[in-house]
């Protein structure tokens, strides 16, 4: 995929190295019409700063909120977002769709 997702992972590394809590969210599955492809990343720090996109804007807020817990607990979790057709247009999933987003913490081990 031609995208800036790699720069986002580079930023995640830089953030983690500077001591910030960091979570990486990845679109792992999509059904129906999804605005961002599988593999898209969103990187979130402990203060809610984020880079990248997993949905073109409609579920980022929810992912960022969940990421705070992932960073605090140090445990990955799977999120699923579904949008009914009627509501879909409003939030940007223009034809209705579902996405599964995996949110994992970046663990700063000794090897890092």
């Amino acid at each position, binding site marked *: *995929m*031609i995208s800036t997702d*790699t720069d986002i992972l*580079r930023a995640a590394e830089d953030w983690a190295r500077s001591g910030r809590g960091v979570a990486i969210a990845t679109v792992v599955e999509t059904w129906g019409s999804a605005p961002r492809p599988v593999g898209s990343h969103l990187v979130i720090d402990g203060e809610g700063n984020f880079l990248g996109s997993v949905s073109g804007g409609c579920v980022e807020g929810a992912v960022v909120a969940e990421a705070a817990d992932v960073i605090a607990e140090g*445990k990955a979790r799977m999120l699923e977002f579904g949008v009914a057709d009627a509501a879909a247009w409003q939030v940007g999933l223009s034809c209705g769709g579902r996405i599964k987003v*995996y949110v*994992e913490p970046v663990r700063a*081990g000794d*090897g890092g």
Partner: protein
Amino acid sequence: MDLATLAALNAERQARRAAVLMSDLASGAQRLVTQAGIAADPLADLLERQLRSGKSGMAEVEGRSFFLTVQAPHPRVIVTGAVHISQAMAPMAKALELDLIIIDPRTAFATPERFPEGTLLAEWPDEALARIGLDAYTAFVALTHDPKIDDPGLVAALRSDCFYVGALGSRKTHGRRLERLAEAGFDAAATARIHAPIGLDIGAVSPAEIALAILAEIVATLRGPRRKPA
């Protein structure tokens, strides 16, 4: 993800090497398989298939769900010739998120004013290309019409595994070019890799249209045919 794994993934990308990260979504366990390690991996077939697709995705292995994060190097286009066509290519390549590098030893052509976008190297191609390196995620395009500049680039491109080689010029010009390359030791199979006439046949006339035809052909070569003829 461990910071060490993230750093390794980023380092592979930085070095323009492909890699696949396998994540067990149930346990969170991860392992990074680098380009060099894929062939010997127990899951080589799966990893190679995923890498060829250029896309990340889910895979079932022995009843467990894995997510495969595919990292393929960023594609780039290297051009010899700081000419009208490459001037037109620069903003288009930027829009396509293709890294463009323009090489021309003629300093009157290779001026930053003429090329505000992309990377411009006022050097001889063989020197510049030896330093940059040509790889499977690089396209090479010869645009100067001057054998002194284009030929060394073509020689380097044909010796590499870059995914696209194209050269500007009429059939007559290309015929003479093939003769020179044959004298340099390249057989017909090797020189058949060169796209000449360059670019998709869209009837391009202006430099911008030729730039579009070339970039379209590069994208088509990179992404492969997806539509079957009707």
